[in-house]
């Protein structure tokens, strides 16, 4: 080896530097951590982001408002619907466009389906990070049904481009609504099956209980959002606290970490919050299917969309937490500036602090439990 270590007698005391990623099985995309370890124990893990940067923000300045919606899909491909919605909300607020009531319900239905799909990926890959292969495949099997539903709703399976300024692209047909109802009947028992297979597993609990604890203070000071924040016991959900769309009319719980197996804010709490959120999403979906009124799915929006000069920051509760689109308009056809705020990016910053002194296998559990998603980090 070319590295020369300072010799101190017979052996040298030096931390081993390992590069976890960008090609590593459990970094969920192209992430990199420069990890210094003493054997298996980590002394430092520095995230290195930027491998998946696609300058989505800059593209926003070069395309029209309508034309930018498909680009927002790519901000987080596991939860494309939320980026659509956040951008459209910002554009609508800038121009003062109203959204039809049926359009709002269509949005919520599509978003909650997308949330279930995203959480399924999250908990499935988390299981795989811990070494359980089967839950991952079972989760993907259920997600496949959601993808089929999404295909029926908007014609796409991953990058939807469904939510448009003023409403949604296509109305949800009654037969699709019936299929969603069928899916919910099928899916709710599946969550229990999943819990029997993975959540209640002794080894799984042992691996996660009390591992990588994020305290409430840390969660605030590192600006964690979404399930990661709620896992630390903070009851904060944009849908409930800064309500948008038709969420104020819907009844749902905001699940928070309860420290049922270890310390408050450990990896298991974050995982468990996601499982509970899938159940809450099912509840929301059932209510929406019942309450959905008749009417147009999209309001009249001019082809040449020119909002007056101004700025607006729209926030939605995405599966990875608070997703915000800050849009500045100068009165032209193109946004003057688009800034995207995502949950994964801030979650990356806490990894260095939490990972000190834990083992290499726990670092993988920590990354999995924070549910960081490479495209969302780099945008």
């Amino acid at each position: 080896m070319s590295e020369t270590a300072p010799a101190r007698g017979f052996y040298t005391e030096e931390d081993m530097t390992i590069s976890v990623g960008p090609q590593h099985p459990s970094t969920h995309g192209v992430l990199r951590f420069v990890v210094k370890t003493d054997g298996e124990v980590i002394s430092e893990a520095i995230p290195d982001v930027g491998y998946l940067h696609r300058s989505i923000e800059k593209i926003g300045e070069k395309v029209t408002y309508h034309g930018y919606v498909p680009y927002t899909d790519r901000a987080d491909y596991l939860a494309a619907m939320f980026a659509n919605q956040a951008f459209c909300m910002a554009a609508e607020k800038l121009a003062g466009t109203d959204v039809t009531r049926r359009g709002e319900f269509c949005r919520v239905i599509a978003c909650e389906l997308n949330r279930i799909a995203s959480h399924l990926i999250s908990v499935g890959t988390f299981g795989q990070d811990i070494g359980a292969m089967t839950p991952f495949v079972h989760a993907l099997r259920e997600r496949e049904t959601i993808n089929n539903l999404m295909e029926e709703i908007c014609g796409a399976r991953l990058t939807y481009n469904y939510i448009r300024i003023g409403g949604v692209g296509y109305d949800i047909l009654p037969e699709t609504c019936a299929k969603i109802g069928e899916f919910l009947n099928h899916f709710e028992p599946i969550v229990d099956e999943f819990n029997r297979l993975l959540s209640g597993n002794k080894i799984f609990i042992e691996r996660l209980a009390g591992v990588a604890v994020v305290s409430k203070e840390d969660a605030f000071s590192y600006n964690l959002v979404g399930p990661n924040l709620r896992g630390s016991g903070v009851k904060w959900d944009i849908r409930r606290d800064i309500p948008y769309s038709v969420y104020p009319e819907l009844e749902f719980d905001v699940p928070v970490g309860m420290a049922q197996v270890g310390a408050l804010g450990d990896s298991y709490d974050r995982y468990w919050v996601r499982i509970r959120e899938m159940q809450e999403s099912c509840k929301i979906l059932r209510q929406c299917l019942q309450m959905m009124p008749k009417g147009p799915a999209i309001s009249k929006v001019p082809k040449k969309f020119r909002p007056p000069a101004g700025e607006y920051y729209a926030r939605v509760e995405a599966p990875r937490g608070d997703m915000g689109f800050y849009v500045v308009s100068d009165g032209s056809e193109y946004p003057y500036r688009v800034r995207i705020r995502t949950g994964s990016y801030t979650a990356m910053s806490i990894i260095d602090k939490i990972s000190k002194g834990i083992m290499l296998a726990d670092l993988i559990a920590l990354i999995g439990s924070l549910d960081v998603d490479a495209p969302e980090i780099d945008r």
Partner: protein
Amino acid sequence: MQAYLDQMIRDGAFAGVPKEVVYAVAMVLAAFVVLSAFVAPLAGVTSWLERRVWARMQSRVGPNRVGPQGILQWLADGIKNLLKEDLIPADADSKLFSFAPYVVFMGFLCTFVVIPFGADLIVADLNIGILYILAVTSLVVVGILMAGWASNNKWSLLGGMRSAAQIVSYEIPAGLAILTIIFLAGTMSMQGIIKAQGWVPWDWYLFHSPFTLGAFFLYFTAALAEGNRTPFDIPEAESELVAGYVTEYSGMRFLFFFFAEWGNLYVIGAVATTLFLGGWQVPPIFENPVLLGIAQFVTFFLKAYLWVFVAMWVRATLPRVRVDQLMALCWKYMVPLSFTCLLGTIGLMFVPAQGQTIIKAITFGFALATAINFFRRVVFQVRNARPELYFKPQI
């Protein structure tokens, strides 16, 4: 076979060649035949079976294209791996790097010498058979450590170190569990251990006493850990260590490691069958020696494969433990428990014969009740599965 060879020597077929050389060449040839005719397909079919079993448990189909139901998939994989580039990293210690897979492979292959497939189907009935298995399987750790070190890759090194610690630790409970049976049988010969048991389940050492029942599960768990199987597959934990000690390997060398791993599964099952499940013992209804041999072979094979299947099942179900939990499990729980099993078995040897029968009956009843309850629950789950999960072995 030896008689046939002696006849040929007497007939002068190998004139001028020392007798020992003829024997040695014949043994190597026999080993080659056994290797290519039995061990290679065994490991290969095990790999195919594992993938199919796994796929069924994960609502997938699995390999079903090469041959009927995909049973020749292992041949296709083998040919593919043979044709791949045999890459040795520039910074690797090339000699050790190339040698390591063979050491691992040898460690697994040597065990087949003493595995009794039938009353006469054994390469060599060594009088220290089980000790020999413990000894040669220890070679595997040397190979893995060599692979981890020679790759000159930090992931490989971590994997190799983990593996060394794990295998060395788990040999203790495995050895102690085996020792209980050695005490009972009074011999270390594999055939001797089988002959000390009967063909009826209550004559197996598994149900001899609660301590041997415990020793069996201790042995099986420790063997899974020694074979780097889930939930103890931390040396090659693909979500943590990329691929552990095989990170830098490609082509046939890579395959050799997995060849050994899948073959080793069968060895685990075979040793468990020999020690605890009565080996090749069959009901005394076969007069024809050929039929008897086939029946013994099939019995042994099925018993061993049952445990291969259980290992696959476990792998499809459980997550992986962490390094420190793995060590804690071994030293805090399994080692004391296996000592308990050993001392308990020794203590029970002083109980008179009637008492032993009662203990045997209680153990057998308990095990039977547990097994019946377990299968009742499995059948319940299978019967109440959703239509898309119905058991369809042929897809």
